[in-house]
């Protein structure tokens, strides 16, 4: 029996050693289309002062091939959905007879910088809005069209288009003023343990980033790269769909995409990445 234990210990130790070295974020530079250099690793913003020494995009936690796939718009499968959204952008829908382009013209011009500041306060509505909420407000109020499903392909593709034209610009969401209360609620949620596994967001993404979880690397859980094209499900994934998956994995009943809890969490998590470049649509495993 002693021999068995020794063999197991040796095998186990070698697996952990190999794994630990492999899980560290990779030092590399993300340059899109050989022209746009993105900030993917930078000083910690105010939101994570004392909690993280620096903030790192999930891009650094991925393998060589996955990282390369994001560096060229043709190799990035997320860009197919951007092209589909470009068609949707020009398509008239709803009783008002308008398309996105009717009011906003060329998305490449009018949407530049928009992704970087969401979620943000909407004065007229008196609420914190995610970009999805704003897209649907535009559709229902201005176009008189049906809202899009919060995490559906049409919505996520539209977000990919809007994000893509801000790539390289720093995430800069406000955390004070009228959003302060929502931001605090999001922070509270981030540090609250949920589910049978009793895990908070922080347990994985603050305390253990750079380590392995089973055969995968734990990142800081930054959301500057959303929407994310995942090799796993070969489609674009939205922030709230990812939140839902994470909370589910703690074996908890999850909040719904678009719920006030997830809106607050998105605001808080986005602010943890203030200073990182907008990357969406990014490529992850």
């Amino acid at each position: 029996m002693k021999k068995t234990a020794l063999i197991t210990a040796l095998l186990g130790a070698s697996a952990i050693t190999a794994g630990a070295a492999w899980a560290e974020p990779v030092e590399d530079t993300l340059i899109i289309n050989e022209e746009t250099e993105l900030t993917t690793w930078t000083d910690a913003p105010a939101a994570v002062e004392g909690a993280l020494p620096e903030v790192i995009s999930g891009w650094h936690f991925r393998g060589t091939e996955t990282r390369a796939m994001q560096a060229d718009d043709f190799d990035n499968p997320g860009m197919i959905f951007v092209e589909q959204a470009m068609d949707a952008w020009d398509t008239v829908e709803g009783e008002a007879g308008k398309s996105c382009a009717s009011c906003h013209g060329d998305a490449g011009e009018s949407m530049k910088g928009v992704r970087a500041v969401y979620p943000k306060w909407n004065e007229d509505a008196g609420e914190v809005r995610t970009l999805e909420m704003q897209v649907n407000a535009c559709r229902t109020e201005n176009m008189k069209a049906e809202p899009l499903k919060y995490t559906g392909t049409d919505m996520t593709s539209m977000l990919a288009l809007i994000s893509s034209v801000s790539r390289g610009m720093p995430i800069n969401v406000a955390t004070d003023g009228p959003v302060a209360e929502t931001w605090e609620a999001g922070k509270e949620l981030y540090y609250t343990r949920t589910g049978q596994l009793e895990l908070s967001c922080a347990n994985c993404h603050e305390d253990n980033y750079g380590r392995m979880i089973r055969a995968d690397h734990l990142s800081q859980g930054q959301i500057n790269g959303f929407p994310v094209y995942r090799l796993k499900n070969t489609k674009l994934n939205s922030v709230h769909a990812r939140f839902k998956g994470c909370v589910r994995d703690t074996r908890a009943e999850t909040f719904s995409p678009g719920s006030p809890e997830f809106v607050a969490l998105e605001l808080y998590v986005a602010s943890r990445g203030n200073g990182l470049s907008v990357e969406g649509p990014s490529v992850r495993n």
Partner: protein
Amino acid sequence: MTMTRRGVMVMGAGALVAFGLPMRASAAGEDAIAAFTGGADMGSEGLTLTAPEIAENGNTVPIEVDAPGAEAILVLAMGNPTPGVAEFKFGPLAGSHSASTRIRLAGTQDVVAIAKMKDGSFVKASSNVKVTIGGCGG
């Protein structure tokens, strides 16, 4: 040394961690090779198969084949339920006898490429790709 049930289980788990769980190559893969080569001998020089040592997800694994002077290159995933992946036939305007694509691997296994050269000979290359399983429900 007496083996307890727990001891055997622990040892088994340790072995899995260390070596992964290789997929068994199917007879269908060998049949596909025979159909392509007609059972001819295969050389080992002149065909490069580039594949990651570790694939982050088996759903999208980038590979490249390159065989200067090849007429056609067959790619097989020997551990997939059906081993066929693709066959590249190069025409007169091919700028090189190479191609890249993205493939699905059902698990850790050997990816095999076989080039049919202009003189009718065959060359084989093989690459073991370890497919990892994600941390959070994949």
